[in-house]
């Protein structure tokens, strides 16, 4: 009897946590299904999920951590850096050593920079080095990515983003070093694709057209269905004086029938839901 009661209590608590997780997913999925412009309803559903998440027991901390990551990326995917920042702050109050949340702080800053100036990647903007508010955001982003890498040196996306931001801040050599590391070690094709795309841009900025071409071609080899590497290569060919090849690159680009296989560049610029976190949470939420 003495053992039976705590045992029952544990089972009851676990059952309650399972039911709470199911509620979290109900609200989260309801939010994710909403149309892009349903900002208020989206925030309401997400906030309802967050309140339940915060009431979960300490034993569900991994679940909570992942939920904060998912919620932050869902808000970034809706170009809502303000609320994403709020969710990240709330998540970091619980999990200050979570490298992904720290990196997402940087993503918020990068996104804010791009909203202020959609031409931050313009070579003239890069080399002008004018300390505009948008560039200041890049400085914050850079600091966040470095901090995230201190927490987890293997967080490849933080390194990729650090490399990109260093390039945008006109620091091509350190940018190249970070991006080459990602290109050589990334296990996710999307990160390797972006690393080569960004390395191509760094080489192009330094007038090293052969290296730029090589990187763009490597990006195409990794993901022949994505458009951005073709655009980048076509432009490079035209700049190199080969207009016919520039036209051929665009003409020969395959047009996938489905648009599900989104180019990682778009997600990089506009945010994307962390589907791995979503799938994990979903599996965990089924009693």
């Amino acid at each position, binding site marked *: 009897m003495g053992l039976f009661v705590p045992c029952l209590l544990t089972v009851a608590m676990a059952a309650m946590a399972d039911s709470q997780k199911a509620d979290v997913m109900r609200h989260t999925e309801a939010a994710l299904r909403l149309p*892009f412009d349903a900002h208020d309803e989206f925030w309401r559903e997400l906030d309802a999920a967050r309140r339940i998440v915060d009431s979960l027991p300490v034993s569900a901390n991994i679940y909570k951590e992942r939920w904060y990551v998912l919620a932050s990326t869902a808000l970034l995917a809706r*170009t809502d850096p303000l609320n994403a920042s709020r969710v990240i702050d709330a998540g970091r109050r619980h999990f200050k050593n979570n490298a992904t949340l720290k990196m997402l702080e940087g993503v918020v800053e990068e996104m804010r920079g791009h909203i202020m100036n*959609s*031409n931050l*990647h*313009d*070579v*003239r*903007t890069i080399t002008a080095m004018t300390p505009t508010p948008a560039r200041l955001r890049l400085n914050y982003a850079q600091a966040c990515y470095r901090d995230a890498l201190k927490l987890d040196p293997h967080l490849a996306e933080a390194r990729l983003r650090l490399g990109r931001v260093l390039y945008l801040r006109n620091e091509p050599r350190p940018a190249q070093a970070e991006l080459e590391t990602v290109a050589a070690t990334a296990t996710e094709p999307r990160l390797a694709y972006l690393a080569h*795309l960004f390395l191509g841009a760094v080489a192009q900025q330094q007038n090293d057209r052969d290296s730029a071409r090589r990187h763009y071609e490597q990006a195409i080899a990794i993901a022949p269905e994505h*458009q*951005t590497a073709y*655009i*980048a290569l*076509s*432009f490079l060919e*035209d700049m190199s*004086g080969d*207009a*016919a090849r*520039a*036209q051929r*690159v*665009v*003409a020969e*680009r395959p*047009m996938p029938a489905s*648009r599900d296989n*989104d*180019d990682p*560049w*778009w997600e990089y*610029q*506009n945010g994307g839901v962390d589907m791995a976190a979503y799938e994990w949470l979903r599996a965990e939420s089924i009693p």
Partner: protein
Amino acid sequence: MIGASARCAPYAMVLAASAAVLDAAQPTFKGRVDAVRIDVSVMHGGQPVHGLTASDFVVLDNGAAQRIEQVSGERSPVSVVMALDVSGSVAGDKLRHLVAAGHALVGALVEGDRAALVTFSHDVRVRVPLTANRAQLAAALDELKADGPTALRDAIWSALQLRPMDESRPLVLVFTDGLDTASWLSSSEILGAARRLGVVIHVVELATEQAVTNMRGLSTRQVFGNPFLETIANSAGGRLWSATDSKHLPALFTQALEEMRARYLLTFYPEPPARSGWHDLKVSLKTGRAEITARRGYQVP
């Protein structure tokens, strides 16, 4: 112009010229430029001026007056690449009107003309390469759906790459209602390409009209557009039409095509022979008042 305004640089008499080498009408480079062809629009009171001859034009190449060898174009076939924004913001009535505008343009094509269809949200798609097959174009227009963010600059680049390498006159007609959020290429890269490639770019913009209160507390309606669009149209010797209601799109599309048809193609052999680098061009009329739109120069490799 039906509820819409054209925002092109108001050139009077002598226009801040522009001109450049049409890619279709690309000069032959044999160490120097042999022939330069300039696609020029001459308008007066919003209407094209017809019947002009070589003796009516003045062309200055880096300040040096040029002898115009040939004026043609009013009857030359047009190759128009439609680059249509089908991002999420275009869904609903706007898309319906846009499809109708595409059909209107296809319907206005004449013998010898060709058209291509590129659509873009974040995803830039060449739906139909240059063709004279109107049924194929019409079928592709009827399949359009709207969603996603906007990769305007990447779409303009792709559309420019469909330019023909023959004697027809290339026109890229861009429609958009939004700001670029997803392009790889930057503004200066696209503007540079627009100057370099010599394709006329016309832009039809669906702008936002909002009430604005001035310092005296008076409320007026103002149109907010994307400044990049005006810059690219001017750089490429084209025009920007700004509408605040999508139902005006069909009229604007055909107007853009008619404007293209009414343009003159001037050919001259640079004297002194053109050296490498950028050449400023100024085009004007010897007499009379008109708005002249053409490219601002050409590049010799």
